[in-house]
């Protein structure tokens, strides 16, 4: 497995994401400005305001993503000298030595479900987070495999790609939601707003707004699914023990308890789908946040070290 290729892919993917979402968000913001102000100075003012708002929103989410995500997930930072978390810190330190990385900050979610994630904007500002269930139900070797998987996400800059994808999806979905609400619930009182062109514009805006969550999440999940396989391989490379991660994943797959702290916005970051909602989904393949866990297990079992 070529990790330099994954880092390069991630950088390219970041540009593609930026470009795709730049167009999507630009079109949505323009529609919204036209609907609110019309094709005149008011519309332009609205567009400027939206532009500034989107840039500020995106910058804040990017730079404070670790604080936002940990706050949303109810994660608490742990200290290395706390005897309760000593082993967890030791394991992270071991894996950092094995990969020559800087030690990230470590957070814990108080939940008996077994899961873990990493986030941040680069390896210098990264965090790793595990549930207390991880510490309770996984053997030391298995936890080591899970931590190594998360550290690979950090090393490969998956965390940055994921953060940017999540921020952009957030902006796009927010705009599409505004368009839907304003057009569906506003009174059409002025005459100019009943012309043919206006109706066509509205229909386009509505269609795009309705499709935005699907397009945006489809892109996000496609990126995250591929990264999971590569992080599994990276974990095997760090620990030289793919069987430990395989048995950790097996425990996770048998664990039917959903993680309460996870939601649709954060699900794709975890090592395995925390929502456990894998059955009966329409268009299941495209909107899976994670590859099939049994597939991952059999790949790990087949690895030679």
């Amino acid at each position: 497995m070529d990790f330099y290729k994954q880092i390069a892919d991630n950088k390219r993917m970041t540009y593609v994401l930026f470009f795709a979402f730049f167009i999507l968000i630009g079109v949505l913001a323009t529609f919204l400005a036209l609907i609110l102000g019309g094709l005149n100075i008011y519309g332009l003012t609205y567009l400027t305001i939206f532009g500034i708002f989107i840039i500020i929103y995106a910058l804040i989410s990017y730079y404070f993503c670790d604080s936002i995500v940990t706050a949303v997930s109810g994660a608490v930072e742990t200290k290395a000298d706390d005897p309760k978390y000593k082993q967890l810190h030791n394991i992270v330190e071991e894996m950092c030595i094995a990969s020559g990385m800087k030690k990230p900050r470590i957070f814990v979610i108080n939940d008996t479900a077994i899961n873990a994630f990493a986030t941040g904007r680069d390896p210098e500002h990264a965090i790793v987070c595990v549930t207390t269930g991880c510490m309770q139900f996984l053997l030391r070797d298995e936890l080591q495999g899970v931590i190594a998987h998360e550290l690979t996400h950090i090393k490969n800059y998956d965390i940055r790609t994921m953060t940017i994808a999540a921020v952009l999806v957030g902006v796009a979905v927010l705009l599409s939601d505004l368009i839907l609400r304003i057009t569906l619930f506003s009174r059409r009182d002025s005459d100019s707003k009943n012309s043919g062109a206006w109706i066509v514009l509205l229909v386009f805006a509505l269609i795009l707004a309705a499709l935005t969550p699907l397009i945006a999440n489809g892109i996000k999940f496609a990126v995250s699914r591929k990264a999971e396989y590569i992080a599994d391989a990276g974990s095997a490379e760090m620990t030289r023990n793919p069987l430990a991660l395989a048995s950790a994943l097996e425990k996770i797959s048998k664990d039917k308890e959903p993680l309460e702290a996870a939601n649709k916005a954060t699900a794709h970051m975890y090592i395995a789908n925390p929502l456990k909602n894998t059955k009966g989904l329409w268009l299941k393949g495209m909107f899976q946040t994670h590859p099939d866990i049994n597939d991952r297990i059999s790949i790990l079992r087949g690895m030679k070290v």
Partner: protein
Amino acid sequence: MDAAFLVLALIGFFLVVGVVVVLGVVLIYNSLVSTQKKVENAWAQIDVQLKRRADLIPNLVETVKGYAKFERSVLEGVTQARSALMTAKGPKDAAKAENMLSGALKSLFAVAEAYPTLKANENFKALQEELASTENKVAFARQFYNDMVMNWNTMILTFPTNIIAGMFGLNREKEFFQVTEEERKAVKVDFAGI
């Protein structure tokens, strides 16, 4: 006129080629030096972890001593192995002393199984985790060193970095750290399931 143009074009061509070659050499030289530094740093990391382990042992011996009936010979074995390691001269001696220490620690933790109160001692449990982790850290530091050595050796043996390495006398292959089969097992069996 035509001849002058040709000469100018040739000069220009060689200038461009020259600049590209010089830039290439600088870049490759820099990456060689930084890789060499990484190898050295990885080696130093191993020593850091070995020292950490040696520092933990007096604490362990002190904690275990309190349990009066605890086998003296086991404790002495650990202390001896540690001092052998501290005074070891050369890598061969050190490797031997390290094997001795790993073995002595292994029997210490095996004997501790028979002392429920010792096993339940918070201090002992913490030390056991610390030692297990330090054993792992030593092993992973060696693994990382070997990874770095492999990077280095690949660099100085493949084209075109091998030419630049030869030019600056950086073409010495580095040796891998050999881990004995026994050592590997000692870590696995000893501390499994902690």
